[in-house]
């Protein structure tokens, strides 16, 4: 447990200069949250790079590589001019204590026992343990046709973070990665809290962060969901903020977070596409789209290495195996039954009911203001549902084993946007944007 805490602290420290290299103005909750996320993403890239050049992972080598990244990022950060106004860090509110209490409860949950979920020991933990014992990524393991059950095509940010924890501890433990999930969730909450404080009162921002706790803290311990919710949620919220303020540094943060989300799970890859399409949809004019879309290049650049390695090692993706189109056409006839089953198995139906009701209640201007988050979330859900129409597995089995997790992946940004819309509407505001975001 202590070694995991040291590893988490190390990741957060590693991320501080990276955050400041992207934006010297970052401070307070935003700096703390982004620092851990950048540290987590950076250590993934460090371990991936060491593996790519066949350098065996040892605590000394990984520490040296991380120190080099730290030094380079510090140098870049110190050369960065502080452009734009420095923002004051968000003021704390007594409600934040409730959020802290929820984080404490989640810490108790995350450290209850060795991670027990099937997907931990059959996918994410299995790969991490194999790589840890080998001292690097075991391509032979990933390429073996007998290991297809472990989804060799899934990106490796999460297993390599587990490996960093094991390297810090000096050995593998099924209990080791538990606290990482607390850190990922806490990082997202810090970012959401800081962003909310820029556009609403400390009370509402604190209430919003508290409401987001259960959505940000994944109960699926040992899986990639916790990290994907954190990176993906942060990425979408930062794109929303970048649209609000058109701030280049916020665009950079957003794109980098989306890039790391793509390295958590294939759904993160889809999220980049969903965000791109949503940006096109809200940009109206070709000039605006031309100005905004290139800002996402860091997301694509971060997603690219794993895609290249995946193709180079011919790692198969089960969902697109066989004839995707024929499966889709066959299942179109079952569409009413599939949709009914999805509705019946909807996780947190009260939450989604409240979201839909709220969207009907709030003024049209507020909905327009939040159309980026609404469209991006909608596109991502369409992607999820389409996957059920093309899956090579039995649809019911696939829905039962994944639908709750998938809807959980997209719930933070929409909850954030809807909560702020409702808070504004309950104060009698019409939801006019504070700056031109369309």
């Amino acid at each position, binding site marked *: 447990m202590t070694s995991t805490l040291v590893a988490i602290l190390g990741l957060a420290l590693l991320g501080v200069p990276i955050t400041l290299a992207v934006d010297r103005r970052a401070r307070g909750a935003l700096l703390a949250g982004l620092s851990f996320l950048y540290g987590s993403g950076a250590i993934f890239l460090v371990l991936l790079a060491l593996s790519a050049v066949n350098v065996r992972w040892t605590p000394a080598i990984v520490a040296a590589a991380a120190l080099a990244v730290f030094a380079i990022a510090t140098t870049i950060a110190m050369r960065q001019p502080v452009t734009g106004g420095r923002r004051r860090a968000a003021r704390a509110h007594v409600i934040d204590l409730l959020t802290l209490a929820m984080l404490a409860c989640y810490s108790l949950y995350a450290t209850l026992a060795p991670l027990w979920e099937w997907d931990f020991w059959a996918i994410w933990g*299995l790969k991490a343990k194999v790589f840890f*014992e080998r001292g690097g990524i075991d391509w032979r393991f990933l390429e073996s046709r007998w290991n297809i059950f472990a989804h060799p095509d899934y990106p490796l940010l999460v297993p390599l973070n587990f490996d960093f924890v094991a390297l810090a501890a000096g050995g593998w433990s099924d209990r080791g990665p538990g606290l990482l999930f607390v850190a990922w969730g806490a990082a997202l909450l810090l970012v959401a809290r800081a962003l909310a404080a820029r556009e609403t009162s400390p009370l509402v921002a604190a209430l919003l962060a508290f409401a987001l706790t259960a*959505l940000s803290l994944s109960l699926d311990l040992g899986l990639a969901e916790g990290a994907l919710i954190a990176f993906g949620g942060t990425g979408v919220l930062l794109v929303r903020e970048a649209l609000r303020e058109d701030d280049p540094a916020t665009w950079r943060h957003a794109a980098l977070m989306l890039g790391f989300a793509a390295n958590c799970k294939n759904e993160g890859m889809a999220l980049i596409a969903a965000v791109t399409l949503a940006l096109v949809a809200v940009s109206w004019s070709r000039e605006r789209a031309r100005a905004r879309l290139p800002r996402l290049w860091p997301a694509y650049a971060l997603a690219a290495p794993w895609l290249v390695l995946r193709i180079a090692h011919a790692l198969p993706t089960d969902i697109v195996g066989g004839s995707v189109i024929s499966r889709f056409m066959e299942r179109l006839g079952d569409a009413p039954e599939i949709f009914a089953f999805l509705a019946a198995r909807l996780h947190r139906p009260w939450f989604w009911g409240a979201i839909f009701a709220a969207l009907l209640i709030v003024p049209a201007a507020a909905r327009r203001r939040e159309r980026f988050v609404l469209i991006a979330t909608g596109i991502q859900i369409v992607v999820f549902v389409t996957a059920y129409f093309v899956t090579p597995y039995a649809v019911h089995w696939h829905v039962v084993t994944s639908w709750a997790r998938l809807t959980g992946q997209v719930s933070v940004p929409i909850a954030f946007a809807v909560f702020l819309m409702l808070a504004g509407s309950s104060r009698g505001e019409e939801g006019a944007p504070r700056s031109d975001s369309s």
Partner: protein
Amino acid sequence: VSPRRALSIVALAALAAACIEPRLLRMPFVDREASARELTAFPDRKWPQYPRFLEGVRDRTHPGDTVALIVPATEWYGGYSEMYFRASYLLTGREVLPLMDPQNAPAPENFAAARYVAAFGVTLPPPAEVVWQGEGGTLYRR
């Protein structure tokens, strides 16, 4: 208060309430030792001896060794895959080979390629060389 404002306040409260996760709220009050025992045993609840057997196999094999797996389940989705996946996790470093594929077709090439055979709940006929026996299974060398 306009109807929209009133509805917004109700919806805000409903949204906040819908976000609450009761499982987390219960955490400070659970019996941690009992929960830990239950969750630790959860992956192997159907075969409590199996992880101890695999631990024995791990102790007697080396990284890089190939181990074919024989278990009572005779169908991939009827238990074999689960025991194979579990063995892959608990025997990392060794190459664990299944003796059937997901379509239940035998994979004799894996038996031929294996240096060891780990048989849990099944006894192989002689002349296989027994390396170790215990915890409901036997490790054979080929």
